[in-house]
């Protein structure tokens, strides 16, 4: 092949952009003299149709099997010329570009230097192209099923969109029921419609959907493969309740004598050792919490078993491993709520009536610990409530970012308080009000008319140390009112902390599991903030909802639908293109030293224990070449960037 290389070289004037500084004639003559160069021409605009046709003609007429164009940056026109080659029946990877504009004619006025450099760049391209080889872009079929991790509103929305389009979805949720945080909410801003009214139907829709295989109380343990062809190992934790037999009658929960703090109610109530998180749980099948079940602790009791008519209780149940094959993955693992006890001066955990946003949310909920009444610990109604914004957000000590939803839910709370306790005094301690969403500003306006007192300033501390008569027995919120620039003390009965949304504590492990990156704030990193907001660096893996960053329900749902659309696009195309310029390992040279094994950021390299050689999964490989440069045996070839090609380019560029 190489010895019969027939190279055509085309020098572009780019009007005067190049020709103004570089003597293109001279460069063309120089190129004509280079080994294996059959024809060298210069032309006004190579990227124009006549220019491209010139190349196509020469390929056909002169039987060129290599083409070099010296013009602008390959970032701009490599594709154009590759296409031209392809149209003329030449493999696009037998084309090489020399950038004599951005890197040459535009960087100097010294015509001699520019021309010399242009020659060097051309000779480099010619020497390089000599060694280039045809490559084929492969296409692999896509598995039409999708794995969705996380059964909150994000995961549910995406699941329904895809399932409704007629494709299989595996929805994995680690809690006993889907629902996530949204299931805990009472009302949603700014419309104040009841959360469960809009959400519960979605839960049951998921539960019943023929295309959705729901795996609650389950966790993804291992993911392998690549876009279109992922394999995932999922561990279904033992419920000790047979899902098929259980009718969800709830008798077991009544009879169970053992209690534990309710996660769902944020510890404000107790649930049983055998429980469903909440009444409308989907699936409506309880789990046994072995850490609180007497049988698991002491080996006695089995009350639930006794009273279960359908004999659904099964203490012998074991964790179960299932493997699913999918074409795409949507990660919707949500967020953790910031633990305010670390900010001790806000008194959370020390004062009974300092509560977190979610605790208050539950309190407002009719099915919550207080059946929707807003009550102090002693059972009385608060006469005054302070809501402290940005607890853990916009704070160098905790999270620098804005959690985006606190302003709005704080406003929502003041409305709920106003609704339930007519004459209560309500104070909002804020840094700035951020009401950016549709209808948000209006909501803010409305609330300010409801007699809510807005105090602009960061709260220094919450204390029960009274300085005056009226502060006696109250919680005093000490803050700097930055508008009046004065320290003020506000005595109240209840303090609500608008806690930040933060990345899940296990986000790092999850990121590794799906081979995606995280931004500095710990949330998962989208591939591009504007152009690819739900994609990740790993093809076929998408991130939606608060695991990608704090956001409200509308944005979350929008992202979920976007991700669903991306997934459906992949599915409907039916196959995916695999990068052609990948790494490949020559088994005849690989000694299995394992140097390369851990270097690949895409886990594209695996070790064949039987043959004792390493392998590149070309579908996962992005062609960065890190492993190629590391291989001490030269057993790895970086296609289209082979050592031979680059060495030739180095020699060429130095003529």
């Amino acid at each position, binding site marked *: 092949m190489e010895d019969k290389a027939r190279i055509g070289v085309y020098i572009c004037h780019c009007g005067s952009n190049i020709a103004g500084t570089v003597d293109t004639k001279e460069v063309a003559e120089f190129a004509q003299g280079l080994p294996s160069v059959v024809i060298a021409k210069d032309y006004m605009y190579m990227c124009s149709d006549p220019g491209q046709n010139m190349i196509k003609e020469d390929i056909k007429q002169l039987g060129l099997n290599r083409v070099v164009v010296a013009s602008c940056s390959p970032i701009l026109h490599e594709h154009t010329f590759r296409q031209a080659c392809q149209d003329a029946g030449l493999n696009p990877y037998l084309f090489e570009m020399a950038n004599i504009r951005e890197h040459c004619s535009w960087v100097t006025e010294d015509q001699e230097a520019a021309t010399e450099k242009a020659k060097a760049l051309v000779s480099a391209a010619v020497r390089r192209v000599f060694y280039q080889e045809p490559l084929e872009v492969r296409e692999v079929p896509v598995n039409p099923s999708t794995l969705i991790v996380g059964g909150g509103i994000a995961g549910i929305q995406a699941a329904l969109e895809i399932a409704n389009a007629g494709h299989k979805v595996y929805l994995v949720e680690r809690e006993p029921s889907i629902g996530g945080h949204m299931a805990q909410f009472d009302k949603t801003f700014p419309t104040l419609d009841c959360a469960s009214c809009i959400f519960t139907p979605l839960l049951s829709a998921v539960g019943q959907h023929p295309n959705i295989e729901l795996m609650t109380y389950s966790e993804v343990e291992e993911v392998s493969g690549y876009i279109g062809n992922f394999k995932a190992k999922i561990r279904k934790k033992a419920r000790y309740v047979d899902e098929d037999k259980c009718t969800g009658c709830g008798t077991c929960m009544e009879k169970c004598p053992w209690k534990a703090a309710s996660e769902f109610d944020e510890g404000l109530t107790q649930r049983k050792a055998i429980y469903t998180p909440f009444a409308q749980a989907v699936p409506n099948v309880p789990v046994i919490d072995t850490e609180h079940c007497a049988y698991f602790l002491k080996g006695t009791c089995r009350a639930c078993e006794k009273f279960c008519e359908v004999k659904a209780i099964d203490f012998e149940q074991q964790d179960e491993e299932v493997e699913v094959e999918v074409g795409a993955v949507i990660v919707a693992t949500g967020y953790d709520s910031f633990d305010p006890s670390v900010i001790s001066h806000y008194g959370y955990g020390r004062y009974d009536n300092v509560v977190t946003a979610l605790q208050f949310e539950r309190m407002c909920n009719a099915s919550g610990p207080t059946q929707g009444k807003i009550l102090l610990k002693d059972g009385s109604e608060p006469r005054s409530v302070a809501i402290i914004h940005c607890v853990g957000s916009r704070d160098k000590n905790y999270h620098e970012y804005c959690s985006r939803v606190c302003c709005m839910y704080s406003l929502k709370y003041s409305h709920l308080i106003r609704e339930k306790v007519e004459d209560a005094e309500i104070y909002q301690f804020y840094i700035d009000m951020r009401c950016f969403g549709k209808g948000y500003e209006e909501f803010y306006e409305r609330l300010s008319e409801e007699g809510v007192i807005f105090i602009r300033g960061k709260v220094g501390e919450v204390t029960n140390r009274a300085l005056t008569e009226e502060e006696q027995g109250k919680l005093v919120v000490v803050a700097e009112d930055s508008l009046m620039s004065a320290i003020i003390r506000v005595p109240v009965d209840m303090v609500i902390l608008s806690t930040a949304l933060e990345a899940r504590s296990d986000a790092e492990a999850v990121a590794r599991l799906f081979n995606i990156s995280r931004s500095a704030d710990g949330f998962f990193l989208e591939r591009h903030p504007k152009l690819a907001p739900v994609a990740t660096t790993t093809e076929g893996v998408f991130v939606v909802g608060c695991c990608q960053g704090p956001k409200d329900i509308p944005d979350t749902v929008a992202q979920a639908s976007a991700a669903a659309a991306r997934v459906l696009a992949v599915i409907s195309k039916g196959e995916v293109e695999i990068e052609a310029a990948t790494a490949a390992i020559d088994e*005849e*040279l*690989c*000694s*299995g*030293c*394992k*140097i390369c*094994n*851990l*270097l690949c950021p895409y886990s594209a390299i695996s070790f064949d224990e039987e043959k*004792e050689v390493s392998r590149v999964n070309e579908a996962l490989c992005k062609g960065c070449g*890190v492993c190629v*440069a*590391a*291989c*001490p*045996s*030269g*057993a790895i070839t970086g296609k289209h960037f082979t*050592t031979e090609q680059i*060495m030739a380019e180095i020699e060429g560029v130095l003529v």
Partner: protein
Amino acid sequence: MAKLKVALYWAASCGGCEIAQLQIGDKLLKLAEAADIVFWPVAIDVKYKDVEAMPDKSIDACLFNGAIRNSEQEHMAKMLREKSKIMIAYGSCAYEGCIPGLANLFNRQMIFDRAYIETESTDNKDKILPQTSCQVPEGELTLPEFYDTVKTLRQTVDVDYVVPGCPPEEKTTWLALEALIEGKLPPKGTVISHSAKSVCDECPRKRDVKKIKKIYRNYEIIPEPEICLLEQGLLCAGIATRGGCGAPCPQANMPCTGCYGPVEGVIDQGAHFLSALASVIDSNDPEEIKRIVDDIPDPAGSFYRYSLPDSLLRGARIK
């Protein structure tokens, strides 16, 4: 069929290659049956005049060991190339310069000064140095010119085959001799060895995770008997060294130092060893990385133990 004519010659080498040739033991007799050794200074009183008298290309094969360190070795290499149909670079010195090639970290002047003036036991107040030509009462005495830089055989004459190793293991030597005797030589340019892969392929030690936090000197630790030495932090060149030797050194609990040269097709063994090693350093923090690499006191001697003259840079630049 007529007996082959074989010449065995040494240039800048240590004699280990001759011993390695003797190592084939009773196979020597097989060799003697198939070939006449027309020239072998270590064992036979055949003088140069006989060789010079031979017509060009009358020797079937010359096994040339040793690098080119001085003017006469260069002359000798060119002469034997003329006389021989096949020129075989036998052993690491001829192939890539070997350990004496480390002299390329210095130059002639520095070497002379150390050897004849500075050395503690040398008594040479007049700073006398050996001369290429020197007058004694009876006449002139001459010595060959000592070059500034060690060269490989391939940098001096056209070489047909290479037999790697310092010295080549018995089986490698026989692989080459057998091919020669039976007229089954591989394509020109072949490096004759049982393996094209790196030493790891033949090393019985278990390989697991290549992540290096600290590099040890070989006297600092007693390595685990079963586990890859590199993974234990020892600078084992096995990853970057052609196999065929059977990995004897790692099996004797010592790291491979690289005497079989680069793996098939690799340009610059040292650079590849270096790159592989650096790639698996277990840190992304520049300071820590610096600390780790600074634990290698002698990069040139470690990565180019045998191949400095054959490396891209050939040696050090002396101010």
